[in-house]
């Protein structure tokens, strides 16, 4: 799970006070020592099987070809950077994403103006390389971290300076949502990410008893915050609306709630 770009491995979040890089951790986040997997004996058998398979049986890359996979890996590294994680504790998001596309697992709908998900990813990779060449005369995998973020930011802002032919076949804002949500869905499906954010994980048949005031169950951990900032030069640390805040209808939410 190492990046194609050697420089990117040194791009660590920093301590805002001293500005010095924070060493990669086994478990970033504010709940040190919290482990959902340690609780697996308390889960029901079907859930245990599903989650352990996810952790232990990482699917091979079968949808993307070698070149696509390398670019897609570099894209994943920027959409969901994991430089702050110990290399052996990085979540193989590309494999999960590839598996979804390979097995044709659909979300149950396609926007009329979008190609099928797999084609959208292939076209997107191509467009991202075209933007990279346009801006920096290099392919995406050969760019520095900040340049890679610059490329992706143009898609986030729905203002890509190249790849026009592709964007005619696929609205750029829809591709952005597809890209980010698929990668985020792969990351936040993994128990290591639950430990990072302090989510209790599977809770059947045990359930919760301390519902109010953010209290931890006896097997959960209280929060222990530390300050951190994205690596110097990173552009993804701030927040701005998808579509760059230009007059542009805001994208709808993508998940079911109520």
């Amino acid at each position, binding site marked *: 799970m190492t990046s194609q770009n050697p420089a990117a491995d040194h791009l660590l979040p920093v301590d805002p006070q001293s500005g010095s890089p924070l060493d990669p951790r086994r478990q970033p986040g504010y709940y040190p020592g919290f482990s959902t997997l*340690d609780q*697996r*004996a*308390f889960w*029901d*058998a*079907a*859930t245990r099987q*599903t*989650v352990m398979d*996810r952790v232990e049986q990482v699917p091979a890359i079968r949808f993307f070809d070698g070149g696509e996979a390398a670019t897609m890996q570099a894209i994943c590294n*920027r959409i*969901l*950077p994991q430089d702050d994680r110990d290399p052996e504790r990085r979540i193989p998001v590309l494999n999960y994403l590839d598996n979804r596309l390979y097995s044709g*697992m659909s979300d*149950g*709908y*396609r*926007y*009329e*103006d979008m190609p099928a998900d797999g084609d959208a990813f292939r076209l997107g990779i191509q467009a991202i390389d075209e933007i990279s060449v346009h801006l920096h005369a290099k392919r995406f995998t050969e760019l520095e971290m900040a340049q890679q*973020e610059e490329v992706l930011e143009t898609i*986030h802002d729905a203002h890509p300076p190249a790849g026009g032919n592709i964007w005619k076949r696929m609205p750029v804002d829809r591709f952005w*949502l597809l890209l980010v*949500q698929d990668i*985020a*869905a792969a990351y*936040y*499906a993994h128990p290591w990410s639950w430990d*990072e*954010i*302090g*989510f*209790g994980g*599977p*809770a*059947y048949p*045990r*359930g*919760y008893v*301390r*519902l*109010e005031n*953010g209290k931890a169950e006896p097997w959960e951990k209280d*929060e222990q915050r530390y300050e*951190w900032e*994205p*690596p110097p030069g*990173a*552009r*993804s*640390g701030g927040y701005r609306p998808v579509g760059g805040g230009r007059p542009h209808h805001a*994208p*709808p*939410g*993508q*998940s*079911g*709630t*109520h």
Partner: protein
Amino acid sequence: MREPIFGRFDPPRSSDHLLGPVQRLKTPMRHYRESEEVDVCIVGVGSAGGVLLQRLSRAGLRVVGIESGPFWDVERDWVSDEAGSHKLYWNDLRITAGANPITLGENNSGHGVGGGSVHWAAFAPRFHPSDFHIYELDGVGVDWPFRYDVIRPYYEMLEREMPVAGPARFPWGYPHSYPYGPHPSAGVGDVLIKGCTKLGIPVVAGGPVAILSGSYGDRQHCIYRGFCIQGCKVGAKQSTLYSHVPDAVACGAEIRDRSMAARVNLRPDGLVSGVTYFDAAGNERHQRCKLVVISGYAIETPRLLLNSASPGHEKGLANSSDTVGRYLMVQAGNVILGRFPQLIRLYKGPPAHALTEEFYETDPRRDFARGFAVQTVGPLPIAFAKQMMVAKGAWGWGLRKVMMDYNHWATLGLLGELLPWADNRVTIAEERDGHGLPVAKVTYGLKENDKKLIEFGKRKVMEIMSAAGAEEVVQEARYAHLIGGARMGDDPDTSVVDRFGCSHDIPNLFCCDGSILPTQGSANPGLTIQSLAARTANYIIAQSDRLSQGLRGLPEEPPIRHDLSPPGTYQRGIPRIPWPARQS
């Protein structure tokens, strides 16, 4: 690794069909031959289909339910895991289009016995009396062919059958009281209560939700694990799979699962003769029956009618009015997210546990008709990440950072009434599914009143969130709860089915599910869908002599049949505060 004192929780080795840890399905199920002409064939055993199946079989009719998804063996099939629950949704292709295309997939219908009631959040409020005549009151939308007093006894019945837990005093709409006690509040409910109370807005907590606050028959009470939208393995949250299907099977109904209805067939005399479907092995089969009820959801019901076009019905079955697929509606479902200095841990407790309907009715001081409700929601990490992607534009390091604050955020949902429009509709797309059946295309766009309502509603919820003490408030646009597409009405020129669900065109073809709702107010539709199913079942039973002879049923309100409730539910639970009956 620590181990539970009583050992790990593994399902029993027996081959029993398990619905939750304790409930078992009585097997073997009755089986009808295809050559046998059964009384009723129901397409889709979901929210409405499950109730219909139970009522009709209890009344002694021979009923077959054709369901495209699996007959869940809950303890073995479901998981307490967000990504692993993908299979509960309708994942077959649909095309979404229009000025404001709606997100489908996990955002709308279910797949498998229980349908959408498997993954609903189980908010179970009633519609208000005003919802049944908004054209008369406000000059918008359309009036229902009947008023609140017709559905009220069914609300009261279904609230006991599900059953619904809620506050002793529910002050909005037709004030009423819930027989089953409210749930304890959790983090997000506390936020809603605090924000509303600060602003002087009445609010209720602990319900109304179709979730057990105490054990009930062979179903366990809620354990507050927050996975309602992933299917409740506990058996606490109602789905028709738990509340109605077991009784249906015990009464001799047959469910053919993994069977996809392809079209409804006609006899030479123009009456419906049965249903053609693809079984689990992909073989084409035909079930003969005297009457068909389509309960496939607001998208699949119109799709099946349109795909059943035949000579004499070139535009699709029951579509002489060109209304099939039209007047499709959603509700405004914006999610408002607030960050708090203190921890919330929004994943605990059922996502649905507190609400206010204070803004439900038209207010002449506002520049739009109708209104909205405000409800708790509880996104698990993947859903929350997707919300942050939209609401904050987060990605990269920013996404990682805000996700590390997951436990500091609370989430509230707007639920606003959007009006019916003829050009918001389901049509047939060029694409085909695995069986070669054309898939549905859903076209949706907002109109002026809709946009104003959303703008006002979302600001109000943001105000509540801030009043509760949030230091940052963001929101995402969203739509929830598809209904319409085969709406009911008295006029055959502007509606697909009559007030009982019988198609205007063909006397032995019924539709019964969310698709027949003419409007949906600002209440979640599930209770109303299931209540209407009980009523349509009563009608079919009351008129069965005529219907089985191919005659149109008489336009008479059917008698209320408490004797057809699942055993032990009728009159169980005493409302704590009897309200003086108020004018509806």
